């Protein structure tokens, strides 16, 4: 906005005088009160020249001393005139603990070689094999810019970068939104590209390489991910808003997890039937091999319904299908119970997925000997599974649009599949994964 000078009115230069009291947030709140509105567009939060900050710390702990994550998040949004805004975000992850390495449990002690050099670690008999050298810190930074082009068009542009000791990712993307029908309808399309580099110590293991006899290539490997999004958001009536998105994701390059192994199980009749297959007195473990491309399609539908009393019901469903043979359904339901100055939001989420075509809990010695295996993974994240999340979020609204919120959730994930043969049948091949998620956040 500008005032053109036709007479003596003029914009005054900055003066170096003492800082006066800032009344903006209190005045905005008072204005909302007298006008009987929650906020006018650009009122209160979102006022040009102001910053909004969000800080949160997330704590994630899996049971059985598996992964623990502490994840502080800092987000700041700067509002400019004409509805333009800049968001900057930083996430710091610290992961410690152990995660399944893909091998099956055994009635014998198992010895694994760490990916980083020749060190080894032992897993007790009948214990789930976990890769215990798991300690990583990740820093992720992102920036996005949102601005209207005119009354009906709006765009965003974003860049992203993250780094951890064996993995870096950089990405960029943009979206364009078109408003129709007096802003009751919005069409949205976007494209994101990301380039990731995987660089474990000593390089990435070749696909299906034997753990014990690994000749590492010291080079790193990379992958490219392209995501395209098409969406429509429709205001149905004063209470209801609905959103439907289709997204397409194409990944190509090195898509393996460089730490995932598969056990080779002895299928020769005898005392060791169903035990670890051995060559030269050592168990045989192979590194996993996934295809070098993956195409995912997903459809997402969300409906938000605001009740007369201020409560909000939020339900969504996502269907995902990919050319690895995985399809998944996600049902998510939240109810925000407005208590005046605070709110309670119970949350329920159910996820189910079918396994990838090349997922197998272990490799049979016959397949291993035949040598014609090209793709295999025992990564539980690619197996048949379902997961349930139940949780509750509490928020306290403070003066001046500040908010404190806390979230506690319980996560239960169950995998199912082939229970093995012989000795292996005595082992729990699909232990449940349970986790507690706790987050405290502050917006100001």
């Amino acid at each position, binding site marked *: *906005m*500008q*005032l*053109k*000078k*036709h*007479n*003596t*009115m*003029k*914009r*005054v230069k*900055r*003066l170096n*005088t*003492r*800082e*006066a*009291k*800032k*009344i*903006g947030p*209190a*005045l*905005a*709140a*008072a*204005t909302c*009160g*007298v*006008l*009987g*509105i929650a906020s*006018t*567009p*650009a*009122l209160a939060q979102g*006022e*040009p*020249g*102001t910053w909004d900050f969000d800080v949160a710390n997330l704590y994630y702990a899996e049971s059985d001393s598996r992964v623990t994550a502490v994840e502080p998040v800092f987000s700041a949004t700067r509002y400019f*005139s*004409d*509805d333009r805004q800049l968001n900057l975000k930083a996430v710091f992850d610290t992961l410690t603990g152990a995660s399944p390495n893909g091998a099956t449990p055994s009635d014998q002690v198992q010895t694994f070689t760490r990916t980083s050099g020749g060190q080894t670690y032992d897993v007790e008999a009948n214990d789930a094999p976990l890769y215990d050298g798991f300690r990583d810190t990740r820093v992720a930074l992102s920036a996005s810019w949102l601005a*209207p*082009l*005119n*009354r*009906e068009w709006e765009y965003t542009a974003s860049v992203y970068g993250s780094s951890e000791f064996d993995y870096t990712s950089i990405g960029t993307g943009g979206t364009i939104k078109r408003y129709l029908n*007096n*802003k009751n309808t919005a069409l949205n399309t976007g494209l994101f590209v990301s380039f990731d580099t995987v660089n474990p110590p000593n390089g990435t293991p070749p696909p299906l390489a034997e753990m014990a006899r690994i000749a590492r290539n010291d080079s790193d490997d990379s992958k490219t991910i392209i995501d395209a999004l098409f969406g429509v958001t429709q205001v149905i009536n004063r209470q209801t808003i609905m959103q439907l998105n289709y997204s397409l994701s194409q990944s190509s390059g090195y898509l393996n997890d460089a730490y995932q192994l598969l056990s080779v199980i002895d299928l020769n009749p005898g005392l060791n039937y169903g035990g670890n297959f051995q060559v030269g007195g050592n168990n045989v473990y192979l590194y996993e091999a996934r295809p070098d491309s993956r195409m995912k399609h997903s459809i997402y539908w969300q409906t938000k319904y605001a009740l007369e009393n201020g409560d909000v019901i939020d339900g969504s469903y996502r269907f995902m299908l990919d050319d690895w043979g995985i399809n998944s359904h996600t049902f998510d339901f939240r109810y925000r119970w407005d208590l005046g100055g605070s709110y309670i939001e119970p949350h329920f989420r159910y996820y189910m997925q079918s396994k990838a075509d090349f997922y197998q809990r272990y490799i049979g010695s016959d397949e291993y000997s035949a040598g014609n295996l090209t793709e295999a993974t025992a990564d539980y994240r690619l197996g048949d599974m379902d997961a349930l999340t139940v949780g509750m979020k509490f928020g306290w609204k403070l003066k001046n649009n500040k908010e404190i919120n806390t979230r506690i959730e319980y996560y239960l994930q169950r995998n199912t599949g082939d229970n093995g043969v012989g000795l292996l049948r005595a082992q729990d091949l699909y232990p449940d994964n349970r986790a507690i998620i706790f987050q405290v956040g502050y917006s100001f």
Partner: protein
Amino acid sequence: MTASKRGKTTALLMPPESNPSQHPLPELGGSEKLWVGRFQAMASDCDILMEGLDRSQAAHLLFIAASETWRIEYKFSRYREDNIMSEINHSHGKTIRVDDETAALLNFADQCFQLSDGLFDISSGVLRRIWHFDGSDAIPAERQIQAIMRHVGWQKLKWEAPMLTLNSGMELDFGGIGKEYAVDKTVLALRAESANYKPCAFVVNFGGDLACSGPRLNGKAWVIGVESNDHDSAAVATVSLSQGAVATSGDSRRYLMKDGVRYSHILNPLTGTSVFNAPHAISVAAPSCLQAGMYSTLAMLQGDQAEAFLQAQEVQYWIQR
């Protein structure tokens, strides 16, 4: 927007209950390209510029705007004897119950009093009994100021919504926020009324206090002529506005001059005296007209420090000294 530019205009018939103060009828001019509605209220020309509408929709929105504005004017005018302000100002120390809208305005006034540390005070109108800004050198005596100050001070009255108790001799006056309030309420009413229309855009401009629905349909800013405070020149300033509101506070020709010192008509309710070195005019942009008006009013009261105050608020502003 001058009359000659508006071309043929038609008067809008209004039911008498929508026009309690018996103003002249609103007039609608312009064309499908840009409708210009105009009516009188609060001692100002009130213009509604609208685009994206057919004639009957434009006429309907003008009717809504005039009805809402005249309702507010009638209800909160301090010159009437049959409204809530009269009831408040003639309560003689008795506790009275006020309606929801009045309570909301009193809450707003209370919050503005708090956040301005007493500089914005709707009980300060009685100072006008001793300060007559007629260009003369009639500065009130200190004794007169002390006497009148006994009746000034929001903290002296008792306000516990919806119950108000005003000491005898005190008076309240929404003059400092009434026009801005009417602009915002009109924008909200027009927005609600046009929600089911095809995309449209409008500006509500009450004598230079203005707010818009958003940018024009072509995505560009509205360019509005604002009458200069300087009546000696025919110069007109233009404001370009693509969202939110602009409000202006000014002292126009109203001042006193004694011993070479110019006393502005801006009165400080904490001291009962004229603010020294207040700018001639301050315009501020903000999301709503009430906010813009409060920033410009409080900046005026800072006198010398007006610029520093506005800098600290991080708002867009223009000052005429």
